[in-house]
């Protein structure tokens, strides 16, 4: 999906300080990274801040980018870590404010209040898609991210293994588990697929 060689050429031009190369690299990944952050958080405000921080980090650390990896793997890795950290911090904040726990005494993932309608595209979605997105959004972060990388970003299992720095077997097992969870959650909420 992302052309590794073209990316590498752009990265090298960036390292020479060419402003146009940064803009082009940003243009290639803008929607993918913003989309990932949005679907991870479901808040347009947070998604914008997170995605911008990801790019700022990437662009200031380009010198440390190891060219034996694909640039796409590197930026997705930084983005997923950033989103998961954010969700964890947020949960901690909510927990310390309200001390919410689930029925089994486990800390519960609180649905965060939504601020605003988000991207325009969301208004056009069918009801079924909205429910599916709702269920995906409610997955635990480590499962959610893997579903998004596979189905939304179209990364192969091998690429996901690189992005998440996990063995291929773990990636497969986790994505299988995530799909089963989605199926169960849809069923529990009496949603049709």
């Amino acid at each position, binding site marked *: 999906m992302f052309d590794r060689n073209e990316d590498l050429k752009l990265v090298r031009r*960036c*390292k*020479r*300080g060419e*402003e146009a190369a*940064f*803009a082009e690299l*940003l243009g290639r990944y*803008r*929607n993918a990274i*913003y*989309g990932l952050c*949005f*679907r991870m958080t479901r808040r*347009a405000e947070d998604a*914008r801040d997170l*995605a*911008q921080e990801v*790019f*700022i980090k990437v*662009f*200031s650390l*380009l*010198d440390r980018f190891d060219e034996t990896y694909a640039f796409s793997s590197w930026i997705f890795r930084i983005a997923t870590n950033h989103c998961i950290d954010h969700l964890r911090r947020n949960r901690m904040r909510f927990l310390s404010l309200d001390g919410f726990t689930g029925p089994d005494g486990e800390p519960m993932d609180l649905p965060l209040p939504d601020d605003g309608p988000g*991207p*325009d*595209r*969301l208004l*056009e*979605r069918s009801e*079924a*898609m909205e429910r*599916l*997105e709702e269920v*995906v959004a409610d997955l635990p972060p480590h499962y959610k991210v893997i*579903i998004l990388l*596979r*189905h*939304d970003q179209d990364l192969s*299992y091998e690429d996901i293994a690189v992005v998440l720095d996990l063995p291929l077997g773990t990636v*497969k097992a986790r*994505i*299988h588990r995530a*799909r*089963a969870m*989605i*199926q*169960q959650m*849809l*069923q529990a909420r009496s949603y*049709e*697929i």
Partner: protein
Amino acid sequence: MKTAMQQPAPPECRQACDRMQDYLDQTLPKRESLAVFLHVRECGACRVQLETLQALYARLGEMPPIEAPADFDARILAAVPYENYRAMAPLRSPRVPVLLEQESLPAWLRSRSVRLVGLFAAAAALTAAASGVAAGTAAWTVAGVGCLPELSVRLQNLTRRVYVATVHRSIPR
């Protein structure tokens, strides 16, 4: 919607369900893939499960693309340390001994036309010698001198490449 997990499933069904996602991902070995295919043809419950999973795969792949807001780029591009990158660019190119720098050879020697004319002269001298028009020693001298610019440039290139690949790489940065 049914899930296979709730059924007190016979072992064939459990096995088919365990393999179903690999089946849809097309990562199963042929033999096992065929076994799933044959099982769901016979077993209604597993067929329903497969169709449900298939629909889920399709739906997940149809999540609408999301576009970043219009004002997204400005903050990022304003934060890039362009000057640092520009300042660091020369440091990043590999350092080689002075003799291996291109500039250590005189510019006229490196010029494309001189190198080309030299090669032509060499070729002409050798042709002349071969056809008996020119004396052997004189022809060989012209050929040698003619090839010199091209040879020296190439030799320097090669040495520099070998240096960067071996010595330079082993110097910790």
